[in-house]
């Protein structure tokens, strides 16, 4: 035991105690050792957990706060903004942040950062939580790529993050339409994706609209799939009536893109980043399904009011093509005639034909009575359709293989036929001998007036005599039944008596009703 450091009393003739000098320090030193170990451990942990420092360049530091704004991934904090400074040229801000260590492998040149604030886009509201907690920086980590510590922040949150399952496609359109980021993509009116970007192609000829279709719907996009602009709504007034086509109320307001795959033309699943044309409407997208087109020339001799380019060409009511042009021509003889150019899609009849097969087939059909005819498609709108049909009784005709378009024989419309019938009737009326009929009528009239004159001369005087004798007869009758004739007086008296009898009977009836016993017992 070591002695107290203080002086001790001087020994007085006493033997010196053995003083044990312990080389080991006292146990109390464990306390600072433990403190040092603990401190070192905590410090080591803090340093080892310290992740990489990164710099993100933003256009503005709106909503960001040094030391407070977090960087979050899937709502887990993965970093903290440590410092915000202006870019040297004042073009933006540099946000210095420290990420957690685990995030280091995900910081590549593909990784994107953006500021998350409350926003309304694409018919969706997002980031409402930031109204209370303040903005934070979102991150879309991408592990593949070159490691990077400098990033350019996005102006807006990306619609789709890299980890989202699905596929990207590019649609080529001549106009961008109303496709902002986040515009929905529909498949059979179900929202399955969004527009990611909308930018001019490097060539400047068309707009490349980048879209993303979420899994599992991305499998619906096949090589034969057609995309069309489903923005707003289409009101089409056609021979089939008025039709309104829209995907959803949201698409009326913010636009939209829809896609579908034609039945029986599925093709293979489209690859990621595959390029598709973007059609203007669903109708346009369907029209393009048929690549083979046969153009025919039809001559009509009647009014084509109601026939416009785009009017349907039907075969027994099934649409097989459309009118391409309606013209007015004067032929060599100075007659007006109306050539109508129509497009027919032979593929609609099933299978593809070679040109030779098609020609032979058509000639056979026309021989059997195939004719074009104008028909009223819609009584209300007055639209006309070109109807192809087999007319067994049609006068024989042949296809004229002229250039540039072959001419198909036509027959007049039923209405036109009716007009022709009416004309025939009028002609018959016209052929009637109206003059002779008139002369005959005049002769009859003369005979009639002769007859009248005879009646006047012979019959009327005799009639006068008859009337005089009748007058006499009436006077004598009057004397017989006049007001003061005996017959009359007798009659009046009889009537008075009858009235009195009736009154007495009435009194008796009242009496019996009041006192029925008087019938037996007599009046009291």
């Amino acid at each position, binding site marked *: 035991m070591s002695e107290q450091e*203080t002086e*001790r009393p001087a020994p007085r003739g006493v033997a010196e105690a053995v003083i044990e000098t312990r080389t080991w320090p006292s146990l109390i*030193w464990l306390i600072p050792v433990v403190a040092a170990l603990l*401190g070192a451990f905590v410090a080591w942990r803090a340093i080892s957990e310290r992740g990489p420092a990164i710099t993100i360049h933003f256009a503005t530091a709106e909503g960001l706060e040094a030391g407070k704004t977090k960087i979050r991934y899937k709502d887990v*904090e993965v970093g903290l903004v440590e410092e915000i400074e202006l870019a040297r040229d004042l073009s933006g801000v540099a946000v210095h942040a420290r990420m957690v260590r685990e995030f280091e492998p995900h910081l590549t040149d593909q990784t994107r950062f953006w500021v998350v604030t409350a926003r309304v886009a694409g018919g969706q509201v997002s980031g409402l939580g930031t109204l209370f*907690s303040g903005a934070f920086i979102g991150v879309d980590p991408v592990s593949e790529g070159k490691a990077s510590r400098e990033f350019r922040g996005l102006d807006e949150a990306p619609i789709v993050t890299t980890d989202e399952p699905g596929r990207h496609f590019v649609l080529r359109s001549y106009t961008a339409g109303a496709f902002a980021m986040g515009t929905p993509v529909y498949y059979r009116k179900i929202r399955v994706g969004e527009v990611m970007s909308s930018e001019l192609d490097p060539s400047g000829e068309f707009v490349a609209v980048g879209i993303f279709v979420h899994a599992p719907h991305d499998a619906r996009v096949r090589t034969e799939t057609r995309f069309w602009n489903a923005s707003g709504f289409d009101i089409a007034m056609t021979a089939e009536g008025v039709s309104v086509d829209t995907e959803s109320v949201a698409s009326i307001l913010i636009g939209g893109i829809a896609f579908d795959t034609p039945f029986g033309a599925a093709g293979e699943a489209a690859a990621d980043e595959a390029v598709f044309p973007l059609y203007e409407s669903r109708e346009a997208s369907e029209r393009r399904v048929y690549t083979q087109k046969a153009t025919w020339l039809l001559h009509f001799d009647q009014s084509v009011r109601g026939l416009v380019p785009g009017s349907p060409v039907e075969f027994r009511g099934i649409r097989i093509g459309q009118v391409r042009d309606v013209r007015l021509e004067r032929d060599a003889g100075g007659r007006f005639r109306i050539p109508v150019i129509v497009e027919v899609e032979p593929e609609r009849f099933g299978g593809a034909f070679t040109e030779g097969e098609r020609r032979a087939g058509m000639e056979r059909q026309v021989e059997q009575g195939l004719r074009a005819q104008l028909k009223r498609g819609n009584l209300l709108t007055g639209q006309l359709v070109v109807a192809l049909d087999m007319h067994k009784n049609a006068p024989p005709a042949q296809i004229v293989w002229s250039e540039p378009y072959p001419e198909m024989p036509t027959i007049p419309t039923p209405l036109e036929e009716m007009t022709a019938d009416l004309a025939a009737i009028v002609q018959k009326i016209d052929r009637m001998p109206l003059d002779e009929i008139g002369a005959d009528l005049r002769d009859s009239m003369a005979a009639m007036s002769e007859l009248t004159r005879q009646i006047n001369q012979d019959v009327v005087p005799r009639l006068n005599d008859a009337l005089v004798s009748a007058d006499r007869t009436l006077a004598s009758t009057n004397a017989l039944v006049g007001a003061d004739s005996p017959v009359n007086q007798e009659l009046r008296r009889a009537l008075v008596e009858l009235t009195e009898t009736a009154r007495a009977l009435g009194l008796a009836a009242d009496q019996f009703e009041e006192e029925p016993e008087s019938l037996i017992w007599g009046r009291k």
Partner: protein
Amino acid sequence: MSAAAATALSASCASCHACGFLARVPQSHGARCPRCQEALHARKPKSLERTWALVIAAAICYVPANVFPVMTVTSLGKAQSDTILSGVIYLLHHGMWPLALVVFIASVFVPLMKLVILVFLMVSLHRRSRWRPLERTRLYRITEAIGRWSMVDIYVVTILVALVKLGNLATIEARPGAVFFGAVVVLTMVAAESFDPRLIWDRCEARTP
């Protein structure tokens, strides 16, 4: 104070730490109070060594206590960690400078001063300094008296952590800084306790007789 005529030590006497009974101590080891059986020491045993150890431990803890956050306030999804100094700065920025002053003195200045004073006293003992023993003793007494007040911070943190448990609305969590800060306060208090101020006077009297 003039030089004392005689001290208990010079008369080979020691007073009991527990009951104050004065007894003759023939040897410095194994003595017991005849009244209460408490071990008798002329001076606190190994006072300087213990004090040194505790002061060093406290000094080590003082660093993380100020570097690490003391508590984290999570309010409406917004989490904020504060160290003692950042709290003081926060109060200053919000115009509450009297409060900032109190927190600064109680939590930063006092623990630091305690460490400095203890180190100073012990260095002076090692150098057998005879400089102003009275003032040094007074310094020691102040150190011992104010030590416990530094614990105010820890109390605030513990109370807040227990009270503010409002889920997403607001939550307060204690962070490692608080543990180290508590350790600093406790260690400096124990260190002050194990220091024997009589040693100051022993040095002065060593050459007086």
